[in-house]
């Protein structure tokens, strides 16, 4: 496959995307290289590894990672693979340690990745092994943004700050609305859906359209409010990120004790407004969104969830999903958020169950040779983008728009066709743009 062929697969100006990018192994291999080995990927939340020696497992694409705090207290991320024969040096999902001892031949690495122990160094290697060259393989860049840990394998990638760009404005809505920020509830929902990872990223980046139908049972049962999902706007934030949600909350209604989370936000509304500013506080709950490529969130009345869609082959993703709470919330509010999250989301959640059904059946229905010739329609709201004063990004007139998906696939195409980061447009006027206005 030649990289110029990707232009036939994604046509943003006309709102067309080929099914091939959800199915074909060759395209998937390109993605692992050009997207997952280059972009800033979400690894973990700082609250998971508070002390030196704490570690937690993660993935970057299909590569297993160890994220840990070194003896100096710095966050580090390494490939979880021994430099000798490639064995996984850590087989726990989280914990605390001084060192990782490889179970195969016993090479031992400290939490700064340094090779500190090699059996038979004297009578096997005759002291000629250059230990300093064989430490754990470390990411090229690692940075945090308000508790969120990201890393990239590409030394040429723009800084995390530039990469997130205007998305930071929306991330603050979730993790910086109150003093102390956020923390994650222990445990991770992990499950597998037989569908390409982009189905999920695309769904979260801008698809409110599916909610009344896919999650019709949630509306019928009164779990999802038709009013909440019908107002607001979608945003193509730039750099492939997107977000959608309500434009103005009726904050007074949040004083109802029936929802402890909303009541907690209501009681803290002055602090929230002070931290975020009047205009931003009005769109407080950020709705749904994706940080390119595979880190998504849902911030709605009752709970907040973060999730990563790990690629596992062209037709398979592994989902890791967390429940996130305000650190300063009282225990009973945190518990109610936890319960609300798991009742509706995760593999057992009554809302999320139906997403997996759609994505897996889309995959089966598009595998055939003939179906792959016909483009998918991403034209909703095409040419109708608008700028809202004070709101970063290109926005849609109503919540029903695929502007977010078009921004996502624009960035996907740019990266797939760009040999280096310097060939990618990472800022300026046209970034995050939709098609020219009508």
């Amino acid at each position, binding site marked *: 496959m030649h990289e110029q062929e990707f232009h036939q697969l994604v046509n943003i100006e006309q709102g067309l995307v080929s099914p091939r990018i959800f199915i074909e192994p060759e395209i998937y291999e390109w993605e692992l290289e050009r997207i997952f080995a280059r972009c800033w990927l979400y690894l973990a939340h700082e609250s998971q590894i508070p002390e030196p020696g704490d570690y937690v497992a993660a993935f970057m694409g299909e590569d297993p990672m160890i994220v840990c705090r070194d003896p100096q207290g710095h966050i580090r991320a390494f490939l979880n693979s021994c430099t000798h024969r490639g064995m996984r040096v850590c087989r726990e*999902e989280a914990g605390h340690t001084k060192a990782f001892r490889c179970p195969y031949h016993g090479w031992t690495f400290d939490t700064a990745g340094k090779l500190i122990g090699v059996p038979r160094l004297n009578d096997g290697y005759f002291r000629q092994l250059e230990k300093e060259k064989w430490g754990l393989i470390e990411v090229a860049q690692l940075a945090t943004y308000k508790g969120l840990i990201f890393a990239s394998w590409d030394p040429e990638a723009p800084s995390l700050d530039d990469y997130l760009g205007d998305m930071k404005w929306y991330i603050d809505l979730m993790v910086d609305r109150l003093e102390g920020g956020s923390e994650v*509830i222990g445990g991770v*929902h992990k499950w*597998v859906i037989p569908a390409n990872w982009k189905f999920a990223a695309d769904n979260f980046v801008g698809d409110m359209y599916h909610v009344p139908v*896919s999650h019709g*049972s949630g*509306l019928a049962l009164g779990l999802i409010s038709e009013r909440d999902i019908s107002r607001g706007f979608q945003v193509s934030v730039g750099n492939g990120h997107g977000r959608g949600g309500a434009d103005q909350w009726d904050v007074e209604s949040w004083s109802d004790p029936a929802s402890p989370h909303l009541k907690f936000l209501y009681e803290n509304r002055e602090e929230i407004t002070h931290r975020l500013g009047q205009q931003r506080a009005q769109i407080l709950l950020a709705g749904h969104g994706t940080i390119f490529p595979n880190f998504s969130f849902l911030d709605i009345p009752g709970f907040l969830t973060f999730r990563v869609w790990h690629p596992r082959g062209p037709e398979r993703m592994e989902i890791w999903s967390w429940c996130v709470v305000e650190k300063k919330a009282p225990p009973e509010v945190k518990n109610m958020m936890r319960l609300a999250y798991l009742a509706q989301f*995760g*593999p057992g959640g009554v809302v999320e169950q139906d997403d997996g059904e759609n994505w897996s059946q889309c995959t089966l229905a598009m595998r055939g040779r003939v179906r792959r010739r016909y483009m998918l329609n991403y034209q909703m709201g095409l040419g109708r983008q608008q700028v809202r004063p004070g709101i970063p990004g290109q926005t849609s007139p109503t919540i029903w728009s695929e502007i977010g998906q078009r921004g996502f696939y624009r960035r996907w195409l740019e990266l797939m066709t760009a040999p280096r980061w310097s060939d990618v447009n990472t800022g300026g006027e046209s970034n995050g743009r939709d098609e020219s206005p009508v």
Partner: protein
Amino acid sequence: MDEMRAQFEAERFLYREAKLLDERRFEEWLDLLTDDVRYWMPVGNLEGAGAPDGQHLSYFEDNKQTLMLRIKRLGTGFAHAEDPPSRTRHLISNIVVEAFTEAELKVSANFIVFRGRLETEEDLFVGRREDVLRKVDGQWKLAARKILLDHNVIGAKNLSLFF
């Protein structure tokens, strides 16, 4: 009550319950639960395991109201994950009565649940259940169920079924 009787009562209850689930007679299944039932499937992964009860994630942490909601959902016409319905087979074995009185049985059992869906979708769930059965008006009812899956990463696209 003697041990043989307790074993018999426990087995009869669990087998009949499994049959109701496989025949999708969910309303009748709900009648087998006490009003204060706790239906709980903690996450099986290592992180968070050992955290105090109620402080880490579960796949299910239901009471009778939320279970009723799950069943009601199936009738909304929008429960796509179960429309058309899955075919399930609950195989319950290794039933051990851990403790018993006239009014209460503590029972552990192993399970394999097979789910077939549409044409070729197949899932297998394996684990153990720890149940408390309580006698209410002369009838055994399920008062608590803790479901321990032996899977860490769930190999299925959802858990739209009951265990």
